[in-house]
Each structure stands twice: as C-alpha cells, then as structure tokens.
C-alpha cells in the first residue's frame, strides 16, 4: 500500500527523501490484558491475541501485512475541503449578543463578543432560516439558538421556531431545534416550546451550587445555580420529547470531573458533559501544560464510575464517554474536528455568517452575510487550511482522525496543548469500548459477540 507522504500540504511522490519521523503511523498499538490495534485509516479497531500483539510491536513489516490484508477505502488524497461542499444543513442563530450572567471565563465576553450588546431582528432570523431551507435540498435541517443568552430575545426565538416549522412543511425538510442556555430565564412558555418541538437543550452549568457559582454569577452576585435549577426543574422532571444536557466548563482551579457529574445528576440531569477551558479573558483559569495529566486522571475516574453504573444496569450520564463510545463503534474518521464551515455555520445578530458560534464577529472567520449568502470559496479555503493532515503536530499523530485537530477557535487563539491528554483519553476510551462491546453489547445495539 503506497503511503501518503505529505509535505507542506502537497503530496510528495513515494520515494521522496523524508525522514521516518515525518511519516504518519499506520496503526497504533495498545498494550494490556486485551491488546488492541487501532488502524488510523478508517478508525478500525482490532483485538489481538497476546502473542499476535507481541509479534507486531516494533515490527513495521507485520503491521503493514495486517493493513494490506484489509479492505480499506481509498482516502481522498486531495487535501482540499471535503468535496463536494454542499450548503450547510445546520445553523445557529446568535439571537442575543448579550447575557444576564457574567461568567468569568466566557468566550463571548458576557455575550457581547467584544462589541456592543445587540439583539437579532426578526427579519434577520427569518432570512437566515429561509436560506437554510432553500439550500438544504430536502435534507433534514437544524436551527440552533445561541448567544449570549438566547432567551433574552424570547420573542424572536419563539417566532423563529414557528417560522421554521412553516418552512419545513413547505419544503418537506424536517427541522430540529437546539439551544445553548444558562437556563436561568426559562418560563413555562419556553418550556412548552422546548417540549413541543423536541429541542436539544445544552445548559451551561459547571456542577453543584458551589462549583458552579464560583465562576458563573449574575451581575448582582446571585447564585446562578439556584436560578437555573429553579427554572429548569419542570423540564428536568418531564422533558417530553426534548433532550436536556448539562455542560460543564472546567477551569484549572478545580479539575475534578466526577463530583460535577454526581451533583448535576442529583439535580436531575441525565446527560452531563465537560469541557476543559483553553482560552479565557480572565487569566489564571485556562489549563496549563501540567494540568492535563491530572485532568486525564479525573476523566478516567469519572468513566470508571460509569462502568460500574453500567454493571448495575444504570444508564450512562457522562456524555463525553457516551459520545466517544458511539463514535468509536461507528469508526468515526474525519479530517476536521467539527462541522463548522462545512455542515454548520453561525449567524451574528447583524446577519453575518461565521464559521461557528465561537468565532462570531471575528473578521477572519467571516463567511458572508444575509444579502450575499455564504461564500463557497471562503468556506473551502477555511476548511482546506484546517485539514488535519496539514496541521503540525497533528499530521503525524495516530489519533488525528478521531480528534480532528481541536477546536479551530481555541487552537487559533491559544495554540494546541494537551495533546497527550487527548491521546490518553482516546486510548482509555478505546479500551473501554473494547471491553464494553463484550460486556454490554446492547449499548451498541448488538447481541452477544464472540470474544
């Protein structure tokens, strides 16, 4: 099998003088009681008999033999953006660049994104929604509401949902809705909308009251936790057709993971995910190099707890783990970390398009506006430049098609750190998955599987 040698984004012919360290690994071996081999191309996971594993270690010939025995899809060696690039099927509307909280680490500068507080008008929202449906060509679409705090612009939110439903009926494209919210302002009216339209709601809470309120405070210093739980309570008790998940931001001040999960589970959440802080307006909060090892430990501890829950026939709560398992099972394999600029874009209050909700009003990430539409060229350019095989040190990392290179916004602002953590977490998840496939096959919709 010819190896793809990539130099400065161009494909070098085989036989070019390239040092061995620059060639990306074909597979990654995981030792242990149940040794594994992870084939990078295609994200194929194999269990190995111990002596088979031993014979593969430090033996590139044996590794290559294994790979040659497989039927692999040819990767598109053209490092351009995923071709063909169709119109996005998912948008997020930044309907309120403003917030009622002032969380210390907020990427959006209290929702303002560095500008003045503003709200999206009905026209702007409708225009973006119309364009989404028009260009989606019958596919299923998603409309998300973000901010700041989207429920500050409740009127536009509700009206947009109704408008999208009408468009959905007209075009035959089914529509799903999502919202990212601090959960403190939800009214019964909002909860009804959320239930009726099967929203996927992501609630930003960092853990129990103390943990959460450390950084997530309202202007007057009141507890964000209480306010959120109070208004969310009815929804947590009865979510109807909606899906509610909590999302914790973890600062270096408190690297614990399990406690947060437990606390939020107690508060009524069935899905809890965590995200380490990499960039922050307030110094001293973002992770530093030596924090990652501890954090990995914490993540593993939380996951081990989930394993025990599975053994007691309890469902998974830790969504980082749940998503990883699902993706590993499917053989998730992408050269980008997310759908931004490809299947997903974000719209600012003024109707400008940006690669995602993190890059709102950042001129370098502008993709067009309501009037002119999305620029295909800009999207392609952006994606080409972000392709993981063009990134250093990503292009020689075995985990690059699982990781994707990291959040564009974070990496471009703060560079890449914690790659060892990512690899460590992925190795852990691979092992977890392998074990779970045998021990809890129904988790993956499977019956008993040999081995």
């Amino acid at each position, binding site marked *: 099998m010819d190896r793809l040698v990539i130099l400065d984004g161009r494909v070098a012919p085989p036989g070019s003088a390239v040092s061995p360290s620059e060639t990306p690994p074909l597979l990654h071996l995981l030792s242990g009681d149940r040794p594994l081999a992870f*084939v990078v191309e295609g*994200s194929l*996971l*194999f269990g*190995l008999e111990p002596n088979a594993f031993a014979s593969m270690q430090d033996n590139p010939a044996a590794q290559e033999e294994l790979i040659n*025995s497989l039927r692999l899809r040819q990767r598109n060696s053209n490092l351009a953006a995923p071709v063909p690039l169709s119109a996005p099927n998912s948008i997020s509307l930044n309907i309120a660049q403003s917030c009622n909280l002032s969380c210390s680490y907020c990427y959006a500068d209290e929702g303002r994104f560095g500008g003045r507080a503003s709200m999206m008008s009905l026209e702007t929202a409708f225009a973006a929604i119309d364009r989404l449906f028009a260009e989606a060509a019958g596919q299923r679409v998603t409309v998300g509401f973000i901010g700041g705090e989207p429920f500050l612009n409740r009127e536009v939110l509700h009206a947009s949902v109704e408008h999208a439903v009408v468009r959905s009926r007209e075009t035959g494209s*089914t529509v799903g809705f999502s919202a990212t919210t601090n959960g403190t302002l939800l009214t019964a009216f909002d909860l009804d909308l959320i239930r009726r339209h099967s929203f996927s709601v992501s609630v930003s809470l960092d853990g129990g009251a103390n943990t959460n309120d450390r950084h997530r405070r309202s202007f007057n210093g009141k507890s964000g936790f209480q306010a959120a739980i109070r208004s969310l309570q009815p929804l947590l008790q009865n979510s109807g057709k909606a899906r509610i998940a909590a999302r914790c931001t973890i600062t270096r001040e408190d690297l614990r993971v399990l406690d947060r999960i437990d606390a939020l589970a107690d508060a009524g959440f069935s899905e809890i995910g965590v995200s380490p802080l990499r960039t922050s307006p307030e110094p001293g909060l973002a992770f530093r190099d030596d924090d990652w090892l501890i954090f990995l430990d914490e993540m593993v501890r939380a996951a081990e707890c989930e394993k025990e829950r599975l053994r007691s026939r309890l469902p998974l709560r830790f969504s980082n783990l749940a998503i990883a398992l699902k993706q590993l099972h*499917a053989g998730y394999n992408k050269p980008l970390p997310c759908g931004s600029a490809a299947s997903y874009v974000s719209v600012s209050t003024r109707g400008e398009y940006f690669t995602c909700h993190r890059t709102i009003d950042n001129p370098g990430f502008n993709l067009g506006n309501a009037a002119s539409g999305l620029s295909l060229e800009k999207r392609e350019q952006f994606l080409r430049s972000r392709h993981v095989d063009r990134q250093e040190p990503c292009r020689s990392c075995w985990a690059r098609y699982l990781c994707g290179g990291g959040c564009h916004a974070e990496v471009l602002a703060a560079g890449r750190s914690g790659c060892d953590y990512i690899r460590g977490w992925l190795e852990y998840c691979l092992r977890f998955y392998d074990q779970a496939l045998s021990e809890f096959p129904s988790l993956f919709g499977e019956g008993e599987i040999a081995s």
Partner: protein
Amino acid sequence: MIPKIFPRNLTARAATLVAGNPVTTRLESGVGNCFPGLEFDHRNLDRRFFPGLIFEFTATGPRLVNVDSNDPELKGEPALKKTLSGKDGKSLAEGAWFIQQITQGGTSILMKQGGNDLDAMTSWRLVRCLQPGKVTIQLERRRVTAGENISQEPITLSANRRNYVDPQTGVISTAYAPGELTQSLCSPWMHDFRDCACFYWASNHPDIVLAQDPPGEPTLPSGAPEDPSLALTPIDWLRTDRSSTKPAGATEDENRPGQMDHYEINQRWQDLAIVLQGREISSVYQPRQPETANPLASPDALAARLSDLAKLEHAVALEYLYARYSLKDPASVASRDLKDALTFAQHEIFLVAVSEMRHLRWANQLIWSLEHAGLLTTKVGPSLGIADQIPVASDPSRPPQLPSIKGVETRPPQLRPLLPEVLQDFIAVEQPSGFLDGQYSEVLATLREPKYPPTLEQLAARIIADGMEHFSRFRQVQVVLTNRKPTDYLRSETFPLASAGDGDGDAALNTYNQILTELDEAYVSGDMEDASHIAVARALMFQLDSQARKLAARSLGVPFFPSVPLKKMKSPKKTTKKR
C-alpha cells in the same frame, strides 16, 4: 502469516476479509444485479423503504405484509412509532392493505393509473426512485375475501425514507433480518431456471430434447426408434403433458402455454426426465455395452486393419462430399421451407464428411503411433488410398443385423447425387452396430491390450461414438427431404462427373491431389504437433470447396475418382468376409 485478529468496531468488521470466505461474499464484489441477482437482490431493500413497514410489490400494487415495531429506524420517527402502536397500527395488522398513493417533495403518484393497478415492476421502480427524506404514503384496505368488512378509511403515514445503509460506514441497516436480502435469489435447483431471463441457468438444463423410445416400438440395435420421425422429433422438456410427443415450437411464446409452471415444477419435479445423449430416459440407463469384439492378432494386423479403415473413411468422405454439392443452392429457390431444408441438408452432410476426414486423420495417427512406438515389424506408412468396397444394407426393408450369417454385402464407391436410395446407402454405412462399427470395435479391443500406448484407444472410441452421430444426422436429413421430389432439391438427377479436360474439373482435381500430397507429408512425419502440412492442406480444402461450387453451378461434380456411371451400376457384389 497474519496474526489472529478480531475486528471490533463497525469499520473494522467491514474491512476484514474473513479467511475462507470467498470474495463473492462481499457486497462490492457481487454481481448484485436485479435480475434477481446471484449474490444480493437489491429489490429486497425497497420492501422496507418505509420505517416500520414491510411491503411486497405485487401485481396489484405494493401490499403491506408486515408491521415491524422493532424496526430500529423507528427510533428516529417518534410520531410514526406512536401511530403504529396505536389504533392505526392495529388496523394495519388486519386485512389486506395496499399503498394507494406516494408523496414526496410535493409530487404525488397514484398506484392506480388509468383504472389499472401499476404492476409490480413499475411500483417497485417508483419506490426505488424515492429520495432520502420525508415520504408520505396513503394506504387503503381492500377486500380479499367475501363478506369482509372493510369500512376503514385510508391511513396516511409520513416518515423519512429509510437510510438503507449507514452513511458513514456503509453497513446495511440492521432492520433487515438475516436471510432477508437473499430470500429471492435464483434457486436453480428448484424452479427458477424456468424463467431465468438472462438464460444463465437455462444453459445448464435441457429445453428441447428427443423423446425416449416408447415401449413396444420397434427399435434399432442402438435403441433409437426405428421410425425416424419418432426418433428425431424435438419435444419440449418442460411440457406439462408428459405423454405428449408434440413437436416443440420454435419460440418460447409458442411453447410456454404447454409448459409446467413454477409450482408444478416444485411439486412434480420427479416427472421431469433425465436426458442422456439428447434423449429423455425414464428407465434405468443401460450404457451401450462395449462391443465384445475379439482383439486382432498382432500390431501388424492392427496396422493393416487401420490402413483399410482409413481407405474406407476416405472413400465415404468423398461420396458424402460429392452428394453435398449435388443439392441445389438454397439462394436459388423461392420457397422458404425448401430453402431451410436445403440449408439444413447441406450443412449436416458436410459435417459428416468433415467428420470422416477427421477419422481418416485419426486412423493415420494411430498407424503412426504404432510405428513410432516400435510395435510394427513392417512399415505401413500413411494410408490415403480409396477403398474399393463399401458396406451396404442388404435388405432395405429390414434393419441390418450383425453379424450377418450371409456375410457383408458391399458395393464399389460411387460418386452420386443425393437421391433417396443414395441417402439410404449412407445411412447403412453409418449404421450403429453396423459394419464400420464392428471393424472399429475390434480395433478398440486390440488397443486396450497392455502392450499398446494407453491413450490410443481413446481415438478408436471417439470414432465409434461419432458413428451414432453420423447416423442421426443422415436420418434427420432424410426426414427433412421426405415428401419432396428429388428434382425439387437436386441440381440434376444425374449430376455427372466433370469430364477429363474440363478446365474447372481439372483444377478441382489438381487441388484434391495437392491436398493428398500435403496430408501424406503430414502423416509421414507424424505432423500432429506442428501441423504445418495440415494447415496447408486445410487452406487448399477451402480452395477445393469454391472450385466444387463452381462445378456444381454447372451441375457437374468433382471427379475425385473414376466412378462407375449411374446407369451402368451393377447389382451389389456379395462377398463373404470373415469378421
């Protein structure tokens, strides 16, 4: 050596070639056509185009055959799932429901057009054209048994068309049960060869055969019915009426009404006949006993016999060839029927003549092999002469028996047009268990002795087997020319030899002699491998053919050998030859 590995996740499983499984078990290598395919019938995907429901594309439209509430696709269709587990679901579980209408992307298509239900192929193709995305179907209940109460209103359901494969991994939707995708494949050992529209399976089973011998009918020693029309009428192997001996029609449409249907084949498969050597057989098959002839005394005696037989083959080859050119050119007659008959007769006789030429070669090859093996005390050399006596049927009204007490009757070789009595003489020569057969049987018995190289007997066996074929062919020609006047199909009833000095005649004779020279060279050197002389001889044969045609156009034949003129023919000479 590949270490023992266990694919874990979906993409690993898709990429793993399991040792022992042939490549044909993988989807991408499959023929996978819709005809209905040899590995995978695509049409079975479309039966579940709508989540939770399974349809069959019948002649009267897509019919609901099952509601599958365990369909994993229903997870993404909560509204539909609710409907199917409610009142509507219960209704659908009873009675016969058909799709009335399908809607997608603003377009609605009725499953009934112009008052008629769309047939299975059409409705299937419409479903196949559906895009991923929302589909709405309207189902109506139809009365299938008398007295059925079908007061229900049509039911309308909407859902996203199933994703047949996982968009990321290409794995087929887990809704399909094991065996579901291959349930409609060709089953050649059952009845599907009945309708294999690409004739893949049909190539392996008989369609037109000869009837077996009706019990009690007079038969020839070979077992074939004496009456040539009975022996040679092609009949339909799939006929429903097993006692029918009606000739098979020339087209599938003609034959179809009289053939077994699918279920008949499944139920009455034992009635289908075993066919051997082109003929149906329902009793225990008795292979023709190998001739219990006595071997010849010595290799030299064998070589002498082969030499004689070669001359005989040569003689009859020329007789057949001569007769062939006496037939009219099919292009020159108006009647379609006669045209076909002439084409057939010419072709068949020519085939037999060529076959005799092959025997001439094989006989010579056997001689050469014996010489080459050092088994002969006297050199024999190639045998390219012409026999001076040819066996004849002694009593045309009675099939010749062997051995004849009175000895074998013979006649000199004669170049004659294909008159009925001439054709009868040809048949007599090729008579199974006839004279020629008997001669070769002794050869065969001799060659089976250990001292002879092992492969030689096969040539002898081939020659004997060919005899039956020649016999059949001539009899078929006889059938085809029955009830016709010789003047209808012959250029002339006398068709004399071209006289000496005739330009065309001399040219043809010249070519013929050249052929013999080349063949002689070939047979001397054992020119079987290199065959350069044979190749030259063959090229000359083409030339001879066109020269013969040229003569034939003048109603003259090639003067291969001095032949006794027709009107001066004496009565057959009786000889007593020891066998």
